[in-house]
C-alpha cells in the first residue's frame, strides 16, 4: 500500500520529527519505506531517513508491505500530517 503526502511541519523532517517517525515505524511488523524523488529508503532507519534531507513542502510517498500494512500506513500518515510540530 502507499500514499503520497507533503511534509507540512515547519522544520521539515529534521532530527526530532524524524526520530519520532522512526520510533513509530519500528512498532510495525511490515516493511516500511519512504520514497522521495528517485530514492527509496527504509523508514525504520534514522540515518537513511535523515539522509533524504526532507524539508517543508517535500513530496514523499510512504510504502508499507506486510501483515499490518494498512494500520501502519494510516497511523504514519496521521503522524506526519497532524502530530509533528
Amino acid at each position, binding site marked *: 500500500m502507499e500514499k503520497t503526502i507533503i511534509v507540512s511541519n515547519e522544520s521539515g523532517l529534521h532530527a526530532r520529527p524524524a526520530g519520532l517517525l522512526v520510533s513509530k515505524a519500528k512498532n510495525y511488523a511490515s516493511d516500511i519505506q519512504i520514497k522521495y524523488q528517485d530514492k527509496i529508503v527504509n523508514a525504520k*532507519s*534514522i540515518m537513511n531517513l*535523515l539522509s533524504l534531507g526532507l524539508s517543508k513542502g517535500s513530496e514523499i510517498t510512504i510504502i508499507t508491505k506486510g501483515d499490518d500494512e494498512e494500520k501502519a500506513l494510516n497511523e504514519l500518515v496521521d503522524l506526519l500530517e497532524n502530530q509533528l510540530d
Partner: protein
Amino acid sequence: MFTGTNASPGITLGKALIVKHEELVIEKKDINSVDEELKRFDDAMEKSIEELNSVKEKALKDLGKEEAEIFEAHLMVLDDPELIKSTKDKITNENLNAEYAFKEIINQFITIFESMENEYMRERAADIKDVSDRVLRHLLGKTIIDLATLEEEVILIAHDLTPSDTATMNKDKVLGFLTNTGGRTSHTAIMARSLEVPAVVGLKNITEKVNNEDYIVFNGDSGEVIINPDEKTIEKYKKLKLNYEKMKKELESLKGKESISTDGRKVELAGNIGTPKDIDGLKNNDAEGVGLYRTEFLYMNRDNLPTEDEQYESYKKVLESMNPNPVVIRTLDVGGDKNLPYLEFENEMNPFLGYRAIRLCLDKKDIFITQLRALLRASNHGNLRIMFPMISSLEELLEAKKVLEGVKADLNNEGIEYSKDIEVGMMIEVPSAAIISDILAKHVDFFSIGTNDLIQYTTAVDRMNEKISYLYRPFNPAVLRLIKMVIYNGHKENIWVGMCGEMAGDQKLIPILLGMGLDEFSMSPISILSARKLIRSLKYEDAKEIANKVVNIGTAKEIEEYMEKVLD
C-alpha cells in the same frame, strides 16, 4: 588576537584546557574469522548503548529533557537496522575487520550530511561522528576523555566539543568554550547558550595556538580571543566582565517593568519576528507584543504556496502565545529582494520600485484572500492587528480594505467566526504615503513606519548598494522630518503610530522618536530591554525638545554627533 564566530555572549578569563580526543587510527587488517569480527562489532555496539544510556540519564538529570534528546537520537543511530546490516554485510562480503567496515559505512553517511544545504543538518554530521567514535573506541580498546572530573576552573579548547563532552562535563568548572570548527547553530554553540557560558567557535586552529595552562581572555559578543595577554589587557577584560555582568543583571531586573519615561510617558516595546520559533526570543526579552510578524518566511524555502490551514496554524501559534498582548501581522511582502521560486517574477530594472508587496497581492488576489482568511480565522486566538505593506496611495489602501471586507463577508456566510476587534493598519514606508498620512489616517487604526524602506525611498539610495551605503542614514534630517509629520498626522486622527524598522531599536534615535510621540517601538527582541532601560531614564519633556531641535539641524552627521552628546 584571534577572531571567530560569536556563539554565546559574555566575557571570560581563565586557564586553558585542551580537550583532545586520542586520534582513532583505523586500519584495514587481515582477519581470523568473519564470525569473530561480527561478534566484536555486536559487543562494541552493546557497550556503546550501555554507556549512552547512562550518559542520557545524567543529561536528563543535569541538563533537562531537551538536551537529553540528543542522546536519544544517538541511541537511535546505534539501533539503526540499515547501519547494522550494511556494516555486517561489508564485514562478511569483503572479509573486513569490524572497525574498518563500520568506519567506511559511517563515512558514507557523514559525506551525505556534510553536503546538505541546510546548515542545521550539516552540523548533525558531528553527532554521527560522536556516536560512531564511541563505537570505534570500543572496537580499538581506547578510553574516553572524562570531563566529569574537572577539578579547577578552565576554558575548554577543542577542535569541536562533542555532545558527549558537553553532557558529561562538570559545568561548575567550565568558564567558556573555544573551538576550531562550528557556526552559530553547531552543537557547541547551542549548548554554550543554554548553559550560559561564553563561547567563540570557528576559530580554525585555536587548538594549535594554545597550550594547556595558557591564560586566555575572550569576548563571546565580539568573537575576540587573546592568548596570554599582558596585565593591562587582563585588567581591561576584568572591567568589561564586571560591566557586562552588571548590565546583564540590570536588564534582567527590567523584565516585567513598564516602558515609561521618568515623567510618565508610556510606550509599547514590541519585537519583530519571522516565524513562530522566534517566540522564545520575545519571551526571554519581555516583549510587550509583536510589532511586525513578517509572514513572507511562510512562503519562502519551499516549492508551493502555503495553504490556508498551514498559515492559520502559524498565526494561531504566535497569537496564542502572546495573548493578550497585541500581534501585528504584516500581509505578504515579497518581490524586491525576496522572490518566490514558484511564482514567476519577471526580471525588473528596479525591483524595489516594482511588482512587490501589496501591489502583488492586489494583482494576485487569490494569494491575498487565502492569507486574509487564515488571519481572520486565527484572530479568535489572540489580539490580532493586520497590516498592509508598501501602500503608496489611498486607492491601494481602500482596495486592500475592500478585499478584507469581502473575505469577512465570505466567512460570515460560511458561519466561520473571527474576532470583531481586529485593528487594521498600514505601513508607512513610501514617501507618497507619508506625505498624505493626514488623509490615510482617517481610514486605518494605526500606522507603522517601516524605516528600512522609507530611508531608501526618501533619499533615493539603494540600500543593497555598498558603494553608496554612506548615503543611507537614519539620521538624515529629511527622514526625521517625515517621521515627525507621520506621527503628528496619526495623532491628529487619534490613531497610534509605531515603528518597525532598525531605527526603533537604535539607542541614539530612541530619544528623538520618544520626543516625537511614537507610541510603539518594534525591534529585534534582543534590543528590547536596553531600549526599556534608556526610556526609563529619559524625560518626555526633554525628549520633545531634542526632537524639535534635531529636525532643524542640516546634516545627518551633526544630528548623530548631537545625539552622542545627549546620551553621554
